[in-house]
């Protein structure tokens, strides 16, 4: 077996406990050590590091929406320098199979946080131009680790560049997402990185307007 991050071989230690049911490792100790799992005190809603129950970002979102369309975000790793390099290789170089390195942690997190909830897994879609270059959608790649059916409920048509506008304007005007069909009651959005939370909330507000009751998100990274 090789480590999907550093591509060196991993020595499998076969003990009695895993002899009959070998769990193939997909990441070596050295690489795993360099990743930074979110364990420190964080916002109960979006997992940003903070000593308060809710971070300033989330409070502002609530102010903005009245009722925040996003119920909760769960992230697994921080966006440290090592992770930045990995994401550059994963997304911009297009090393698709790197997702396997995070298989165990993504599944564990999903099982701990969302198990037994009757929810539909919906990856955040990628614009057509990006898809043509990358040949995969990173959010869908991460969602595929969950062993759950994936539903492409959304499409994306990126309009004008967002950067010049204020956050308030961005969220209200030109939502890049479109709905393909009527959403069910409970939805889990999946994406690679939660940065400002804007993208996830654009998708969430669209789903809620169309009748979804409960929208949560699972993201690999909280930056």
């Amino acid at each position, binding site marked *: 077996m090789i480590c999907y991050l550093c591509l060196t071989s991993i020595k499998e230690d076969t003990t009695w406990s895993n002899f009959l049911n070998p769990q193939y490792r997909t990441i070596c100790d050295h690489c795993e050590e360099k990743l930074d799992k979110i364990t420190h005190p964080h916002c109960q809603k979006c997992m940003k590091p903070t000593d308060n129950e809710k971070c300033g970002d989330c409070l502002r979102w609530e102010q903005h929406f009245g009722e925040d369309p996003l119920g909760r975000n769960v992230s697994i790793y921080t966006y440290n320098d090592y992770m930045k390099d990995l994401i550059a290789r994963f997304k911009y170089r*297009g*090393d698709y199979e790197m997702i396997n390195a995070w298989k165990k942690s993504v599944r564990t997190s999903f099982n701990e946080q969302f198990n037994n909830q009757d929810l539909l897994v919906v990856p955040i879609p990628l614009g057509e131009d990006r898809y043509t270059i990358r*040949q995969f959608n990173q959010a869908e790649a991460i969602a595929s680790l969950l062993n759950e059916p994936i539903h492409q409920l959304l499409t994306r048509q990126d309009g004008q560049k967002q950067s010049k506008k204020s956050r308030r304007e961005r969220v209200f005007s030109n939502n890049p997402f479109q709905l393909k069909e009527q959403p069910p009651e409970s939805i889990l959005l999946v994406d690679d990185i939660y940065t400002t939370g804007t993208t996830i909330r654009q998708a969430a507000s669209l789903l809620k307007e169309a009748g979804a009751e409960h929208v949560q998100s699972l993201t690999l990274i909280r930056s």
Partner: protein
Amino acid sequence: MTTTPPLIEDLARKFSTKLLLKHELNLSEHRFQYLIDQNYLQEVDGIRSTLNFHECNRCFNKNQSLFGKIPQHARAPITYCKKCIQMGRVSTKESLYRWTGTHPMRHKVMNPLKWKGILTPLQEKASQKMVEAVNNQSKLLIYAVCGAGKTEMLYAGIQEAIKQNKRVCVATPRADVVRELAPRLRRDFPTIHSSALYGGSTERDQNNHLVIATTHQLLRYENSFDLMIVDEVDAFPYHRDKTLPKAVTRASKPNSTQIYLTATPRRSHKLQIATKQIPTVSIPSRYHGHPIPTPTFQAVLRLNDKLEKGVLPPKITQWIKEKQTTNRRFLLFAPTIQLAEKLAEKLNMPYVHAESPDREYLIKQFRARAFQSLITTTILERGVTFPSIDVAVIQADHHVFDEAALIQIAGRAGRSASDPTGDVTFFYEYKTNAMIQARNYTILKNKEAKRCNI
């Protein structure tokens, strides 16, 4: 639709003798199609596949575990090469492109070399051999000790090649070395066009006279160079990675001159030297004529144990204190990043390792004498030189310090003519063969040098 003919000559300079991905061509779709239709560009499969066996046409990777698959909706998955993905993805869907238009011209430079220094008789010998190799399109191995002044030995050969309008490449396995060599070559050949290529450099090669590159960067070339100089052929990753010599061969023209440089040949090169399979010129002496410092062995009882516990043995602290009181600058080599880190904390000194983000900066600062000492892993074992330093190896018996590494480390000391001696000390618990061989090497080379200089 009307087509404005692209500036073919300009494109030829950019693309000729390279194998590039579509996005590296950086053309509009319209212009790209035009060049394909007019047979200026030829598509080459990125991955050669036969019955589930894949080979990367850019990096020669054949290790099947280094190919990945990208699932596709209702289509066969795409196979891509992970080994060279840092240079952009090559896959069954992402091809390489080769320029098939006419080759570009290069302006002739009659006397490119502006260096006015004088070579030692030994350097002169190697220099002449290299000029012969350039004229005969043959191979030559230059086996020169650290500090022999090998860069200057190359100058006459490079000058000769450029005069004949040949294209020259100086390749080395390590980016640090590219960064150190490029400014020197540019200072001494100021009128030619050159580019320095390594992962992260922003320079572009447009059919230049001279390319200074990591051996990795040569994966983007084919039939490009008339004179190929490979520095430090024994260094990592070149000597381990069988695909890099292939890259060197492909990047060279069929009738090219090949010059290899090493201070510490590995077994395969030693064998080639011994059996005279490759013409070799040996330079056992430093350019300043002084002997290479012989390492001093300092055994420390239970050294590994002590370091583990975070205790620095008195022998080591004394060595450091002595350097500090006599104002000698020094490098401390540690076998692992963890130990380097521990030492740095304990001694309150800066440290560098392969993954330090500020590595280039620290090396520059140390060279500028901003601080007196630097702790390092083996990344500073070669290529990078500081004029007047002493060197200590902590845990010289660690397996990362093989013979070549220890010789290279010892070779850091006494490099300048004004301060030709230097202290090299190995701290260890159990004496290793590598340590003994490294010491024997210096003794042998110094003897050889004496014989040559009489």
